């Protein structure tokens, strides 16, 4: 009976009818070890740590792999409250009690213990930092202690102390921000950021707490306070259980500003951030709501839906159906035992969830495909997709598919125009912000040495980017920032992100999204860093396929291309000849030759050799159009092509004038001679012969000269007889 119910619930998680925008993937990372006493998460190194009485096991969670094998360190026996590796992973720090932290060098196994000075204070926790002034921060009820770790002397030296009463604290390594709670209701906060520039003290602030009754004052708990990092900005989320609201605070260097309040439908709330998308887990309701905190809109991306569990696909295939097939056999054993949003679930920053009871670690994924399918708002969905970086390639494919769909469905031009605007703007920003793939990759790897690398590569990039125009814009934006100094526009950003995204950070400030670099470079790499779509790709994956699919009057597609060109023109994005050739083809096919003419004359269609030849081709049925092609060749100074076309149209004498004027020496005399001879006009033939005799010194002695002189004589004699 029980088993049956289990399988049913498993089936409902996997059922093809089930909708979800967020899923976890089987198999999970199993982190259960015999004799395990506890599981810890070291977010500085992104390590999941399990301890037994005398051993410490640590699994890397980035990159996430269910088959990852743990490292193992022997430790002395004793109680363990928390464990964190130093950021270079050479030292193990274990909090043994409320008063002592033990440090162990992993190579030499040397140990030493740090004790609290007085009995009255106790240690709330500690963390390692890459702040230049200190290595380790210990949070105590009496405040913060900053220490430098000395490996040679096996000691830590106190360098700074901040005295204040602390009830509890929250910290994420991602934000380098520690928030210290104080006060009766625990709603007064002091924040410090351990940035690369040193310690930054944030202004004190108070969180909003609704009162349930007149005399009861709710107390804020640590688990109701979350620090999240979204688009390089740091937010604090606070659950107000009385008001059933999730308050969102944004941190600036000199201010903390409450941004908005999101409704919640569960008293237990957890948050995750995946690819800058905020996931608010309504744990009691067992659903998750997605928000893209970027623009002004605070509307959820989609309706609340449950989280599903899916099979693990090794090929990292984008096909959902494939992943469902794999679901069936391989993963049932996990699914049967998995209780989504179970009591043992602990959400780890930013995108992991751990079932502590079973010792399973899952990584949470967004199903971009499902999200994009769930919205009918094409432009806003494209904006959302264009901001995705984690699965940039899929986001890009989905963007293209969405663009195709709205055109094939013949949605109103204004809607498609907006969609084009989004794509072009996104591409334009990706070109301007110019972040390399290398940097983004480095960002993903979490070791500190890699971060340093990423930083240096960014510096290189900025220097190299200075040569182009885009960089100027960026520089202006940057210098604009400086005098403001502590104005609210100066976003307090986490150190690493601030460095490795320095340029994107500034474009964000100026109110625009940031896109790493250049799609051509990205194409060569399977790991795209941006979903930005180049005009060329829009042609290849939107216009070209759509054009084949759509039948009937092409004026709709022409209208769309015009909107595309308008966006591109506004953003100063260069458009490939393909688009123009297609425009010419479409207009010629519907015999709108006079419109085509005005497109050419007003240079809506950018002149190029390719376009010129398309005009010549389309002009087979329409002389005016053919002449536009000829004129374009001439205006582009493609002398050789122009002359050949003139001769083809029978204007060989005019062609000769042109040859003379522009000294087009590459032309073959035979072309003209044949044309003149076939016209049966001896005067013209004589003129051509004479022309080339003057024009080129070798012509007189050539065989052609001889041949055509002979033909000319023949003509003349036939006339005289």
């Amino acid at each position, binding site marked *: 009976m029980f088993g049956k119910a289990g399988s049913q619930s498993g089936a409902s998680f996997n059922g093809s009818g089930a909708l979800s925008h967020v899923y976890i993937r089987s198999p999970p990372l199993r982190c259960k070890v015999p004799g395990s006493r506890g599981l810890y998460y070291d977010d500085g190194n992104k390590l999941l740590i399990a301890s037994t009485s005398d051993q410490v096991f640590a699994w890397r969670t980035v990159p996430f792999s269910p088959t990852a094998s743990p490292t193992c360190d022997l430790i002395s026996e004793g109680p363990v409250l928390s464990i964190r590796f130093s950021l270079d992973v050479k030292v193990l720090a274990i909090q043994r009690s409320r008063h002592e932290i033990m440090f162990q060098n992993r190579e030499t196994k040397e140990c030493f213990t740090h004790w609290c000075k007085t009995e009255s204070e106790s240690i709330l926790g500690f963390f390692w930092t890459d702040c230049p002034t200190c290595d380790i921060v210990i949070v105590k009820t009496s405040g913060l202690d900053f220490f430098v770790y000395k490996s040679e002397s096996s000691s830590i030296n106190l360098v700074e102390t901040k005295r204040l009463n602390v009830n509890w604290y929250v910290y994420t390594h991602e934000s380098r921000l520690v928030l210290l709670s104080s006060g009766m209701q625990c709603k007064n906060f002091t924040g410090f950021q351990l940035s690369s520039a040193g310690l930054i003290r944030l202004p004190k602030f108070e969180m909003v707490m609704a009162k349930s009754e007149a005399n009861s004052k709710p107390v804020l708990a640590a688990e109701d306070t979350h620090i999240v990092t979204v688009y390089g900005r740091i937010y604090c989320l606070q659950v107000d259980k009385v008001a059933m609201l999730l308050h969102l605070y944004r941190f600036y260097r000199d201010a903390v500003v409450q941004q908005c309040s999101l409704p919640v439908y569960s008293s237990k709330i957890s948050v995750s951030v995946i690819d800058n998308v905020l996931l608010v887990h309504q744990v009691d309701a067992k659903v998750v709501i997605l928000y893209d905190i970027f623009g002004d809109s605070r509307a959820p991306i989609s309706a609340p839906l449950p989280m599903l569990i899916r099979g693990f696909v090794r090929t990292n295939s984008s096909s959902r159906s494939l992943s469902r097939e794999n679901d069936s056999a391989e993963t049932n054993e996990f699914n049967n035992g998995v209780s989504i949003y179970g009591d043992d679930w602990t959400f780890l920053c930013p995108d992991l969830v751990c079932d502590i009871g079973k010792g399973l670690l899952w990584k949470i994924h967004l199903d971009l495909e499902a999200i994009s399918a769930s919205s009918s708002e094409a432009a806003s969905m494209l904006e959302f997709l264009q901001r995705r970086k984690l699965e940039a390639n899929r986001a890009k494919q989905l963007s293209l598919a969405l663009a195709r769909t709205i055109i094939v469905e013949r949605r109103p*031009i204004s809607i498609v125009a907006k969609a084009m605007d989004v794509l072009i703007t996104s591409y334009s920003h990706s070109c301007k912000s110019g972040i390399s793939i290398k940097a983004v990759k480095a960002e993903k790897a979490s070791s500190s040495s890699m971060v340093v690398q990423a930083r240096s590569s960014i510096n290189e990039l900025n220097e190299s980017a200075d040569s182009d125009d885009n960089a100027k814009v960026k520089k202006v934006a940057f210098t604009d920032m400086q005098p403001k100094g502590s104005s609210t526009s100066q976003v307090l950003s986490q150190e690493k992100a601030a460095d490795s995204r320095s340029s994107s950070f500034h474009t964000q400030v100026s109110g625009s999204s940031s896109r790493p670099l250049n799609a051509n470079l990205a194409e060569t790499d399977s790991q795209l860093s941006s979903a930005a779509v180049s005009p060329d790709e829009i042609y290849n994956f939107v216009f070209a396929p759509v054009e084949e699919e759509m039948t009937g009057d092409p004026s*709709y597609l022409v209208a769309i291309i015009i*909107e595309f060109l308008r966006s591109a023109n506004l953003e100063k994005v260069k458009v490939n000849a393909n688009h123009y050739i297609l425009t010419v083809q479409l207009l010629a096919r519907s015999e709108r030759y*006079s419109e085509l003419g*005005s*497109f050419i004359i*007003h*240079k*809506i269609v950018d002149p190029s050799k390719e376009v010129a030849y398309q005009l010549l081709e389309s002009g087979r049925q329409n002389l005016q159009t053919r002449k536009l092609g000829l004129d374009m060749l001439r205006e582009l100074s493609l002398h050789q092509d122009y002359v050949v076309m003139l001769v083809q149209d029978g204007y060989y004498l*005019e062609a000769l004038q042109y040859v003379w004027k522009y000294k087009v020496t590459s032309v073959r005399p035979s072309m003209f001679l044949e044309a003149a001879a076939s016209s049966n006009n001896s005067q013209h033939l004589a003129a051509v012969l004479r022309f080339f005799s003057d024009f080129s010194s070798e012509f007189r002695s050539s065989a052609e000269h001889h041949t055509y002189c002979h033909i000319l004589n023949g003509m003349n004699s036939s006339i005289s007889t």
Partner: protein
Amino acid sequence: MGLSAVDNVSEELQICIFDLRRGQYEGQELDKILFFFPVDSPFSVQLSVIGLSEGLITFTRIFSPEASCEVIEADKHSHVFYEAEPDIWTVMIVMKDKELEAVWRTEALRKVLKEIHSLFKMFHGSIRSLLEREPDGRLIRSSLFSFIMDYLKDFLVGKKLHLPSFRDSLQERGTVQMLTVGREAAIEVQSLVKTIEASAGVPTCYSLILFQDLLVSSTLHPEDTINLFTYAILRLSPHAMSPGVRSWSYLRKGSGATHPTVGTVSTSSSSISDVYGSLSTSGTDRNSTFRPLQSGKWARGKDPFLTTDIWGLEDGASSSRTPTAWLQEEKMYLCAYQHKSLTLILLLPVSSISNGEQGITAVKHQVLENASVKILKVEEKLSKGWGGENAYHVAGYRYLLVDGDRHASRASPPGKVTTLTKESLLALNTLREQVDLEKNRAKWDDPHKETNLEVSIRAKNNAWVIARLARGKELYMVLEKANETLLYASDAVEKFSNKYCNGAFSLD
């Protein structure tokens, strides 16, 4: 002041339209006359003019069945022929007099006849179709009468009709004048065009956009573009709609200077209408014909499209009926909208609007809803980029540039052309006459081959008068006070060609 009050007109100008297929028997000759100007000419005069014309046509057809008589130059008169429709001829007879500045270019006069017919056909349908509808000829006679009289009123300067003379050699009737816009504005315009045409919600729909008196965009067939453009300039553009404001469009020179007070021909001179009426039609019938060229009849409506009662009133309602026009054999509703200097004409097939005026109102509403923001934006953009009425003046040059492929022309502003001496203009007129001849001759030799031609003439007053024809484009130029060498003239053309014509005339 009616046209007919002009006494001396009959001496200088006669226009007649007749149908060779009618009145073939003795005693029925009057039947073939469809229109005669001056209207009060005695029938004997009318018959003798038409008899002569018919004789010449019949005679020349013996030699050239395809294209008979084009022009007869008599000692004192020129007879200009134009076969508007098969066997329906229009003939214009003008008096030649050097003293009175009566020096004409045949082709320019023929273009007037052509324009009359094209415009007539656009609003009424072909003459033949009207004749078939009412074989007694009443309908066509009354329609032609009111139409041509309204048309000719625009040529009235003071008490004289001013037909295009040698002074108008730097103009080309039957072409459109385009506004030059930058790429960005052009894209915005196209975006507007597509928005309008898409929001009309009918499968085929066309539009024409003008800025001031210049064409910005058209999705019509080139012929329809010319006709509708001409009509818009005559009656719909901001200049045409506000009498008293001088139109700077050169084609409108006559009417602009002294806009005739609108006294309708039929009512103001009953004697004439009696004469004409006795020939063809009773007064009541004529009142039922609509007069699309009647001036001062368009106004801004409530919707706020332009409105006119020319097409009559809606049955049982006070609102005006939506105008219609024939484009490429299809009857279209014509909706005109004006925002400041921007005039926007939307054409909807009558067949695709199922519920008449109601349907039109819905379409208008839809268009405004979707496009009004774009209309504002485009108007603003075009206004900003516009250089004023002398925008296309090129210092030192008096020119006319005709693009035969686009049916477009551009010329020195009329105000600048008036600075030329009479000698220069006469020389140019002669040159153009010759070029016209040359073009026609070449067309007969090989209709597919385009004439390329260069002529530079040193006129008696030491001005250079230049004509260039290259691959369908024509350039006419007068350079006064210029250096005497041919090299100088040629250089001047070359510079002009490179700067303003993308090097179209820079072959040599």
